[in-house]
């Protein structure tokens, strides 16, 4: 990533945070391209025991696009929030492509905070995606919180800052969302 492009991303993030929605339109394709490249690179090297660390990928994209130079922490949280949505989309697209070409498996995805749910392959990832869509339909904010945690590894204080809500609300939404998702996924897992 050339230095000028990394400066451009930082600039776009700043504009977006200040309320310029067009900055996000410019930022998204750059970010999507980089995340997709990283994800495919890691998914290529698939082995049966391979575990994809989604939060590590998002973090790597951040370092490549924004760089480690003194960027305000707030920018980082906003970046990860956007990246986690794209990460989800990339992984789901990838799982669908594999299914369409009738290849089995998919790699194991390590979701932080998701110890109780097993996402061992494409089918489970797509089930999680469906469950998350259902949750977002009844509670958009909870859907966002889960997405930021699962796919971006954002902490509760970072999420409260990105969404402008209290830490207690994040904790409450998170605790109830994971229970809801757990039930939803164990229902769909049954034949």
């Amino acid at each position: 990533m050339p230095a000028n492009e990394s400066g451009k991303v930082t600039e776009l993030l700043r504009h977006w945070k200040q309320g310029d929605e067009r900055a996000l339109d410019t930022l998204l394709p750059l970010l999507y391209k980089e995340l997709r490249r990283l994800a495919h690179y890691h998914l290529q090297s698939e082995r049966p025991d391979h575990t994809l660390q989604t939060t590590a990928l998002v973090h790597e994209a951040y370092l490549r696009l924004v760089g480690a130079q003194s960027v305000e922490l707030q920018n980082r949280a906003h970046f990860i929030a956007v990246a986690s949505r794209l990460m989800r989309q990339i992984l789901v697209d990838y799982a669908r492509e594999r299914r369409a070409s009738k290849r089995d498996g998919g790699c194991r995805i390590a979701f932080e905070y998701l110890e109780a749910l097993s996402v061992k392959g494409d089918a489970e990832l797509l089930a999680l995606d469906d469950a998350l869509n259902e949750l977002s339909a009844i509670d958009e904010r909870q859907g966002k919180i889960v997405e930021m945690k699962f796919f971006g590894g954002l902490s509760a204080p970072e999420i409260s800052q990105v969404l402008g809500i209290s830490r207690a609300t994040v904790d409450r939404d998170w605790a109830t969302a994971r229970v809801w998702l757990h039930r939803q996924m164990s229902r769909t897992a049954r034949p």
Partner: protein
Amino acid sequence: MSIQAWEQVKELLHQAMQLAPEQRAPFLDKACSSDVALRAEVESLLLAGEGVVTTRVANANRCRSQIASR
């Protein structure tokens, strides 16, 4: 489930999760009164919540035994 229904379930679920298991039934008796569907929904989620905890404990125990057997 509707947005409003989930908001209500979520609130009760969260409150019930803060309580000790034996305090949950009396709490729900009071909070749900005669709303059987609401109570069933919260109880079903509390049960799923126990599954989350059980799996985490099981995972932790498995890790421990793996480490011990090395």
